[in-house]
Structures are given as structure tokens and as C-alpha cells.
């Protein structure tokens, strides 16, 4: 079901491609089920019909954008994604002049994992109705309040309206009650040192060094990475816990000052390691100086 924003988005993308302002438009298309979207690049005006905008447009397109650096790109971005793009522009990885940003105001995205968990069976449709989400499972509609299904990072969001855009779609959302970004870090710091070590040992023992956190990160743009030079020795990596510890410490600390807190690393982690905690700790450390 097309929403109002989705229609506006398709119309704008179509116009941009038709008038030749941009070469491609980066957005989302429907994924393998209604709870999933995947990044999509529309190259012709006709292809813009496949663009979608809904409450599960979670992936950060800034990383996808980086792959198209050098071309004239139109892109649909939420407030948090715009932050990553602003950072990429300031790091000279993207050219502002070659970007056309279609900003979309955001009231918080829903967590696809949670949606899948509460739906008993395959979801055939996901409908937004005010503050509620309607899940269509086997021709039966169930209503769920959207606030309870909010993505963790959206509960601490301070950028519902993008800070940089060429076009802005959607209405200004009501100011949300913003939770403490660093609450998780403080809770962990309240433990004693052996407690913290035990926490991280347990979490990081799940890590298989798949490097998904690094691959997805929009601000991890170095062509060569000192952290992956040992990739050719996977046995060493998988068995030694110290390697996993130092990988995660270094991944986060090399991003110090660049990380915009989009939490993509945590989202893609197949083992659900709370990687955002490490990023928040570094953020806390940087802001206290």
C-alpha cells in the first residue's frame, strides 16, 4: 500500500531522473517480505515505481551512497542517515554538489525483528495507521502501538528532521521524549571491572569475526584496513579471544569522531553483540574532553 510520502518520493525521484538532474536515485525497494526493505538504485524514471517508503526503512543509505561517489546521485535519507552523509562530506568522501538529498522526516522506525517476533506466521502486509501498525498475517489484521515497537536507536533520536536536504518530505514530527543515549554505557560502568570483563567475554565470545559490522559502516571507508591484514589467517582469529577483543576495540576507536551513532553495526551483527555500547563509550569519552 502506497503511503503519501511514498507517492511524493516516487514523483520527485521520477522528475529528478527525467530532467537529468541526477544519474541515479538511491532508495529502498521491497525486500523478501513486507518487513524487509533493501537498498535500491533507480536508473530510469520507470524504475522509480519500485521505490518504497515505510516504517521499516531502517538501513542507512549513506554506505550505499559511497559506492556511487563521483556520479550525480539523488538519495532519500532519514535524519540519522543525513548525519552520516554530512560526516562523509566533511571527510571529503562525497561531494555536496553532486548530491540531491530528498530528506524525509521520521517519527522513528519500527524494529523488523520485533515485528517478525510478534506476528505469528508470515506477514503478508504491513500498514501504518496513525500511531498504530497493522500486521496482516494469514488474512487476519492485528493492531500494535508503534511506540512499543520503536527501534532502540530511535528512542534516543535527536534528528527527526534532517539537518541537510534539497527537498523535504513529510510533516515535522512532534518532539519525542528523548531517552538518555548513554544509559547503557552508564549501566555497564556501574559494574566492577571483573563484571565488565565477564560481560564482554560472554558477548565477544559469540563473535565469529565475520566483519559485517565493518562492511556495513558508512564511515569505514579506508581502502586498506590495518584490522583486516590478518584475514588470511582465519584460524588464529577465530580461536583467540584477545584478537576479538582488540578487533572490537580498534574498530570503534578508529571511528572516534566520525561515528554518527547510526547503529548499523549492531543491526547487522548476526550474533546480536551490543556493539553500539562501544561506540557510545567512545562518544562519551570524546564529549567529556
Amino acid at each position, binding site marked *: 500500500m502506497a503511503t503519501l510520502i511514498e507517492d511524493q518520493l516516487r514523483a520527485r525521484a521520477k522528475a529528478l531522473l527525467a530532467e537529468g538532474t541526477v544519474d541515479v536515485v538511491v532508495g529502498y525497494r521491497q525486500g523478501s517480505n513486507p518487513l524487509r526493505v533493501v537498498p535500491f538504485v533507480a536508473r530510469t524514471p520507470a524504475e522509480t515505481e519500485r521505490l518504497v517508503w515505510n516504517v521499516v526503512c531502517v538501513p542507512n543509505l549513506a554506505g550505499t551512497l559511497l559506492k556511487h561517489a563521483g556520479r550525480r546521485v539523488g538519495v532519500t535519507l532519514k535524519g540519522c542517515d543525513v548525519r552520516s552523509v554530512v560526516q562523509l562530506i566533511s571527510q571529503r568522501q562525497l561531494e555536496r554538489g553532486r548530491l540531491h538529498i530528498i530528506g524525509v522526516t521520521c517519527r522513528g522506525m519500527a524494529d523488523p525483528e520485533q515485528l517478525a517476533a510478534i506476528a505469528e506466521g508470515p506477514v503478508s502486509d504491513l500498514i501504518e495507521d496513525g500511531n498504530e501498525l497493522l500486521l496482516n498475517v494469514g488474512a487476519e489484521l492485528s493492531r500494535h502501538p508503534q511506540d512499543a515497537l520503536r527501534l532502540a536507536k530511535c528512542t534516543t533520536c535527536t534528528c527527526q528532521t534532517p539537518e541537510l536536504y534539497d527537498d523535504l518530505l513529510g510533516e515535522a514530527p512532534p518532539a519525542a521524549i528523548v531517552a538518555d543515549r548513554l544509559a547503557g554505557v552508564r549501566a555497564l560502568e556501574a559494574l566492577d571491572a571483573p563484571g565488565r570483563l565477564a560481560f564482554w567475554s560472554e558477548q565477544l565470545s559469540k563473535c565469529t569475526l565475520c566483519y559485517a559490522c565493518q562492511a556495513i559502516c558508512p564511515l569505514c571507508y579506508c581502502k586498506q584496513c*590495518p584490522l583486516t591484514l590478518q584475514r588470511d589467517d582465519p584460524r588464529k582469529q577465530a580461536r583467540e579471544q584477545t584478537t576479538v577483543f582488540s578487533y572490537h576495540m580498534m574498530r570503534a*576507536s578508529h571511528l572516534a569522531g566520525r561515528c554518527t551513532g547510526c547503529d548499523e553495526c549492531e543491526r547487522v551483527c548476526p550474533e546480536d553483540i551490543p556493539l553500539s555500547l562501544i561506540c557510545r563509550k567512545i562518544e562519551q569519552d570524546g564529549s567529556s*574532553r
Partner: protein
Amino acid sequence: MSEPFEPKILGMLCSWCAYAGADTAGVSRAQYPPNIRIVRVMCSGRIDPLFIARAFENGADGVLVAGCHSGDCHYISGNEYAKDRITSFGNLLDFFGIDQRRLKLAWVSASEGARFAAVVAEMTEELRALGPLRLKV
């Protein structure tokens, strides 16, 4: 009876002050524990926290980073960068539950041989008390 624990310390010393300080310690025959292995770097600002992480990964129980006193840096401000970087990495170690005393930052000038010996002796004692670094699960 098992042998007493002897910590391994990796020292990363700046070429202009701390390394020369270590040299002074040797020349003046100051006694300090043989637990430290020294790597010379051109400036303490050169030290990426990755070096420290790799040192711990490869069996060091402690890492000593030493450079010029504030204002004495051969490259004007390298030691100021080192101070921020190493302190921040120490906080991160602490966040992971690794004792911050395993990473020591010291300022040693070229003439302070005795001070260098004292720093190494003090750190060795501390690490002996802490025991080996175990991250195995």
C-alpha cells in the same frame, strides 16, 4: 613450587626523550627490572592504540608509552596528541574490564635515567600484583 610470575612489558619510547632517557639509565648503570622490551618510535604521537591492542594480543601483560614532557616535544605537539589518544584508549580498556594500570603513560626526558628506571620498576611491581592478562573464555 611454581616460578613467580614475571610480567612482560612492552615499552614504546619516543626517540628524543624517553628512549634517550632509557639510554641514560643504562649509561649511568641504574638498576631496573629486565621485564621491559623496548621499541623506539620517532614520537609518542606516532603510537596508534592499535599497536597497544596488538601488544596485548601477542602476550604483553602491560604496555608502557613514554614520551617527552609537555612542551618539550621535538615535533611541537606530538606528545599532546599521545596524551589524549592513550588516555582515551585506557578508558576503553577500563570499559572492557581490563585494568587500566596495564597501560601506563609516562613522561621521561633524556636526562632522567633514574626516573625511567623508577617508572619501569614501579610498573613491574604493579603488574606482578595484577598477574597475567587473561582474556580467554
